[in-house]
């Protein structure tokens, strides 16, 4: 799985003001200011160069902020470097470590961040390992998050079997497990 976009997640509590300041200092033209919708992020966008756009996405539902850059490829370039220097991003290693934590708050924070990056890290074996950890977490609220966001991980071939394995173990979330298996089967059948 690949993506043409460079994408990072801001650390919790890290202000986005530095991005606004960078945009102002570099004279980037603002091209988008869309308020959030019930299930969709707020989006602010700037044109950094003729070919490069920078977008700040604020996912209120899960309390995550992402910066997405179109035009420099997933590895980034000069604009990505300026963003790395100005903003406090979570590293991928940190996100995997949080997601596989036993602490439910860390696991949720890591998992919600990882979910925003699945288009970038879907091929990384750590992603399916992390999903499995969340799916089997001791806290129901964490397991529920894994089930609710099944769709984002559907590229993983082992996903359906992992859900089927949870069928006999989940009591409070049994209904949701069945719903997600049904969803995957509908996706398989097209």
């Amino acid at each position: 799985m690949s993506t043409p976009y460079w994408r990072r997640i801001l650390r919790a509590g890290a202000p986005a003001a530095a991005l606004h300041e960078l945009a102002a200092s570099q004279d980037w033209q603002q091209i988008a200011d869309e308020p959030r919708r019930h299930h969709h992020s707020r989006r602010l966008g700037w044109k950094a160069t003729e070919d490069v756009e920078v977008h700040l996405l604020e996912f209120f539902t899960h309390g995550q902020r992402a910066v997405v850059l179109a035009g420099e490829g997933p590895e980034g370039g000069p604009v990505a470097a300026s963003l790395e220097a100005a903003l406090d991003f979570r590293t991928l290693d940190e996100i995997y470590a949080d997601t596989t934590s036993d602490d439910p708050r860390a696991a949720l924070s890591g998992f919600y961040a990882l979910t925003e990056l699945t288009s970038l890290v879907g091929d990384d074996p750590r992603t399916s390992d992390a999903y499995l950890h969340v799916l089997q977490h001791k806290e129901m609220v964490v397991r529920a998050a894994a089930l609710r966001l099944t769709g984002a991980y559907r590229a993983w071939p082992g996903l359906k079997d992992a859900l089927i394995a949870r069928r006999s173990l989940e009591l409070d979330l049994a209904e949701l497990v069945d719903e997600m298996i049904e969803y995957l089967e509908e996706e398989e059948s097209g």
Partner: protein
Amino acid sequence: MWSLSRGPTLSHAVDSVPAMSRTELDWLEDRPDWLRGLHEGGALDERGVTWLDEAASTEATASLRSGYAGEDSLTRSPEDARVRMFITEAEGKIPVATGPSVTDLYGIETPAYWLAEPGLSGRLWLAPSRDFHPFAWIPVGATEQAAVAALEHYFPSPDLTRLELPRELRVFIGYRHEIGDMHDLERAMTFNRMLGFGSWCSGHLDNPWPETVPEGTGMLALTAFQHNTASVHDPGRPWSQTWRTKHSGSYFTLEVHQRDLFVLSVRYRPSPYLEAMERSNAHNETRLPLDLPPDVAVAMEGLAWADVPDLEADLAAAEDPDEIAGLLRVLAALWDGDFDKTTALRGWAAHPSTVVHGALWDAALQYNLQFLCDEMLLAGTSEQLTGMCTRVLQIGGFPEQMKHQDAYPDQAGTEPYEWDEDGEDEEEDE
């Protein structure tokens, strides 16, 4: 009385100036040098300004007073107190010119008034229309450059988009049981002379109305456009109704939150005329941002509001759980769209009171804040809320029907109305 329809438009004035004889200001015997310079320079004439003779100046004063005090109003009685305030504010300021005009949706023109304040610290003032409150009149200085800058800032009225309105003011204006429903507020706004005709709902981020409606457009077509296009509501956003302010082109939006709270949101382009807002704030005993366009302050007359800094200070000092819960409900509405403040709601999940948890639950439900629901479960809130949050998890998140309700469910259309170029009414089938 000045007829609103007689004010010259900018393009008309530019074309016609060479053929016009200019009115002299000889009647203003002690006119200062800077006013002589402005009059003789001709830069304002070229941009649609018409100089007044003495009789017209007297008439203009009466018109401005009437615009503020309501002496010729069809909707309210004249008020002695307002007449007295006008006299105090307008003292020493003499109308010397009018124009250009702003043009509304129906093509009706509203001319500006220019007033000279002679004396040592004298200067020129701009009243963008006769309905502009005198304590919000704009002091523009005493140079041609400053007068032209003010004129070009306001005329023609800027048709700005959301992207060009980078600042936002959000204030809480009351509860439904206190100030009435959205229909009541809409009726009040219809008579607000700082707001343009034609409003739009949350289905549009920008003004869907044309600059002026096609000539000959009938009321049926206007109503069809209002209902079928402008009133389309986006259930993913708070229900809202927006008007464009006539002079600064700001977006003046009333939002309904949690089915009970009214928020006023104003998107605006920073105004360079800070002194006008200083005077307005001093007169009204408010503390609106100084870069707020003065026409917004005039449009807010009659509303009582609480602003975010005040409410946040109240929340920081509050100890009573009922008070904390009430403030959290209102602030959640005011913080809607502010990522940092909304995510900080998480910190309240550890509060011991169930009434506070109830306010958080309402915010989570209304604004689809799954992270807050998660936190309430992890913090081990009340048994009842734990059950409700668990149910949310079991069904895979907050359901669609918890989106924002339409205040006019029977009116908003689903099929867009498009203007017919011939001005005929026509609804387009999808």
